[in-house]
């Protein structure tokens, strides 16, 4: 017996629901999402065990060194990446640039990252993400910022870190901050949540939901400065659901080996024997910049609010 396969069509059903948007992020948990700028890099990432790839015009380290306005990738590049791999493809749009987001949805990417790594297109408003069928991931440095993004329709959050530095200290700060603020909410009595919502500058209903469940309503990855298997494992031990690696892979000496090692370290994040093994002989890590040496205007994490 065999069934006919008219591949590509969707049967009558509801698309773009909150559940399917958040659900794709649930399936990425325990995985590594890698920044790629070409189809070849995307294939290498897939082959190394990336759970998804993030298409962008330049990796953050290059955006830093070259300067200028950083924008959405050329659609030809995104098409090339989408057809090169079968794992999910994400792509970055500028903060507030809803037309870049419309274009990316049209191109058939699986997730849009409204990202502070690119130059913001609107210094007041983020994209109204509820209007889209494609889901969005957004960066956050603290719980209030995460909840404002969720209120705008983000289906996944990543702590920001400081992209393109290879310095993990900001990523550590942001994931610790978000986790501790969630924990603080769940220990508050109900009458304290009104003021908590005001102080977080976040909607009261989501604050109550988090206080009751003790967790964010969406998946929380971490990003920004992760360069080694140990960095990735540390983020997982701090409570991240998964890890984004940007410049850390393709700005290193042996991208294929490093990428595979970071994937293994993310799965066995709590097993020092595995971590020691996969950390061996990876060649040079990306050179890196200490965040403390970056003048404030060059800190990407401060974009978005």
């Amino acid at each position, binding site marked *: 017996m065999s069934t006919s*396969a008219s591949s*590509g069509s969707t049967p009558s059903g509801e698309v773009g629901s909150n559940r399917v948007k958040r659900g794709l992020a*649930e399936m990425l*948990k*325990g995985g590594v999402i890698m920044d790629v700028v070409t189809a070849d890099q995307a294939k290498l990432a897939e082959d190394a065990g*990336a*759970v998804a790839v993030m298409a962008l015009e330049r990796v953050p380290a290059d955006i830093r060194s070259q300067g200028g306005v950083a924008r959405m990738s050329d659609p030809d590049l995104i098409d090339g990446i989408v057809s090169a791999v079968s794992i999910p493809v994400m792509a970055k749009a500028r903060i507030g640039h809803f037309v870049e987001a419309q274009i990316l949805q049209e191109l058939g990417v699986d997730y849009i990252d409204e990202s502070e790594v690119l130059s913001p297109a609107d210094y007041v408003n983020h994209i109204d993400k509820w209007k889209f069928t494609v889901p969005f991931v957004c960066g956050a440095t603290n719980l209030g910022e995460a909840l404002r993004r969720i209120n705008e329709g983000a289906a996944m959050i990543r702590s920001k870190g400081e992209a393109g530095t290879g310095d993990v200290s900001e990523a550590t700060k942001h994931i610790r901050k978000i986790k501790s603020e969630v924990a603080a909410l769940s220990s508050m009595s109900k009458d304290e949540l009104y003021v908590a919502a005001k102080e977080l500058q976040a909607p009261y209903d989501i604050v109550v939901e988090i206080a009751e469940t003790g967790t964010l309503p969406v998946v929380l990855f971490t990003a920004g400065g992760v360069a080694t298997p140990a960095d990735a494992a540390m983020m997982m031990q701090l409570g991240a659901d998964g890890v984004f690696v940007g410049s850390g892979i393709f700005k290193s000496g042996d991208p294929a080996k490093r990428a595979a090692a970071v994937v293994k370290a993310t799965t066995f994040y709590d097993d020092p024997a595995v971590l020691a093994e996969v950390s061996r002989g990876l060649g040079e890590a990306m050179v890196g910049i200490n965040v403390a040496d970056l003048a404030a205007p060059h800190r990407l994490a401060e974009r978005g609010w």
Partner: protein
Amino acid sequence: MAGSDTIAPPVGVLALQGDFREHLRVLTMLGARAVSVRRPEELDDVSGLVIPGGESSVMDKLSRSFGMAEPVRAAIDEGLPVYGTCAGLIMLADRIVDGIPGQRSFGGIDIAVRRNAFGPQTASFEVDLDVPVLGDPPLHAVFIRAPVVDSLGREATPLSALDDGRVVAVEQGNLIGTSFHPEMTNDYRFHRYFLDRVRRVAFRG
């Protein structure tokens, strides 16, 4: 659930990547002693295994590089009850269509499964499905970049299909696979169906 569940051998959830915590939560809620399984020795004392949703190509790589693939295959051959959702269905299929180069599965169900059969994430959907073995009411099913059964071999039995006829739930012997994610809803009849099988088979019991 009966009290005997808690003294039965634990039910494992393959925890290499994906939504394994949701399956652990559902199994625990249904009274099973659920444990995560990442290493070969952790497979030795489970009476059933759930393979979660996630990225099948990543589960394949990790299971091979950490020596899990052969032990899982051997346990399937010996009759271990296994339930796979989405990527888990792919891992249980004898043949994969549209896999990444070199991708392998554990196998066990005589089907060819097409990965990501509906297109990009914007085509992911929710729909009500008739599943005769579960009875009424229809099951609300969540499909996320989901696979479908492309062709069904003689040994496999379809459990449910979409309106267009494509098979999205299947079983063969002690193996059950669904294209969709009951762990993301509040309807756990497929997990109950699986746990009933686990109890009846009493693998290593």
